[in-house]
């Protein structure tokens, strides 16, 4: 089996996450008053679920533009870590191919690709790139398509089904598996305490305080406790 098709097969199950999540973005963006081209623009240009939801929520609260951008980028800081982590595998590609990988580097493509590279280390850089493109295929294009589907069906979804809480539930479900070491759990706990303590700060700037505080707590806990689970 070619590396591309192997990647496609391994990426396919992520459709179960991508379809509801991208539809949810389409629904919420439409309910917030965004026209279809702006909603799709988010999914194509930004292509990052958590950052898109963050930006949408802050736009809805009429936060200053700079706060919207800074907060959503803070949510996306982990992408730099993904970039660092995948560089030993794909860093030898020509620049334009590294640019393509960077654009499609999201939680699911990163996690699945690195898992495979570590499991099957004897791949050439060409094979690793083909595998990455295979994983990306059932994840990123459906992200655009089902954003549009969500935007189109969104207005027909009745109010008051607890949809306001779909975003917290989606994020909390992702946070659960992330808390795999004591340091991760301490980072999350400190971030939650700081987020509640600094919720009074204007325009959700408490999020930045809480996020940075949680990161520092996690790094300090790792130094003292080690990174073992």
């Amino acid at each position, binding site marked *: 089996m070619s590396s591309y098709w192997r990647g496609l097969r391994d990426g396919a199950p992520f459709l*179960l*996450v991508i379809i509801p999540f991208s539809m949810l973005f389409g629904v919420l963006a439409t309910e917030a008053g*965004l026209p279809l081209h*702006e909603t799709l623009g*988010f999914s194509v*240009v*930004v292509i*990052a679920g*958590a950052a898109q939801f*963050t*930006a949408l929520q802050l*736009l809805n609260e*009429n936060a200053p533009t700079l706060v*919207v*951008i800074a907060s959503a*980028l803070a*949510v*996306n800081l*982990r992408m*730099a870590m993904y*970039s*660092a982590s*995948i*560089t030993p595998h794909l860093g030898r590609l020509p620049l334009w191919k*590294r*640019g393509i990988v*960077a654009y499609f580097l999201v939680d699911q493509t990163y996690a699945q690709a690195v898992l495979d590279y570590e499991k099957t280390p004897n791949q050439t850089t060409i094979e690793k790139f083909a595998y990455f493109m295979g994983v990306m295929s059932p994840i990123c294009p459906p992200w655009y398509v089902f954003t549009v589907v969500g935007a189109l069906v969104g207005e027909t979804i009745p109010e008051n*089904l*607890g949809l*306001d*809480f779909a*975003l*917290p*539930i*989606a994020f*909390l*479900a*992702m*946070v*659960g*598996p992330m*808390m795999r070491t004591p340091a*991760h759990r301490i*980072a*999350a706990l400190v*971030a*939650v305490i700081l987020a*509640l303590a600094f*919720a009074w700060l204007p325009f959700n700037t408490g999020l930045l305080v*809480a*996020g940075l*505080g*949680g*990161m*520092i*707590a*996690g*790094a300090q806990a*790792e*130094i003292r406790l080690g990174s073992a689970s």
Partner: protein
Amino acid sequence: MSGSTEVWVVIVALGLGSFGLRFVFLGLVGDRAMPDWFLRHLRYTAVAVLPALVAPLVVWPNATDGDPDPARLAAAIATVSVGYLTKNVIAGMGVGAAILIGLTALL
């Protein structure tokens, strides 16, 4: 909601910024080593920022004008617990949604 120009400014700035974050090491650093302290902090970005984002929404929900709501609190705790115990995002979302819908109907 803000004006259309502002939304596009946000979209383009976020797109460039997100691409920059994804490209910075892959494109510019290559295979040179990075300082440990820097990677150590980045490891905890997602697990700190995401809970910080939702904590106020869980404790003071928009739908109840900021009054704590037992159904939403229970759904949030169940979601994060199931996600943590099963390592399964979809299971966590499913249980959380079921508890929210069930308790909202009952209470």
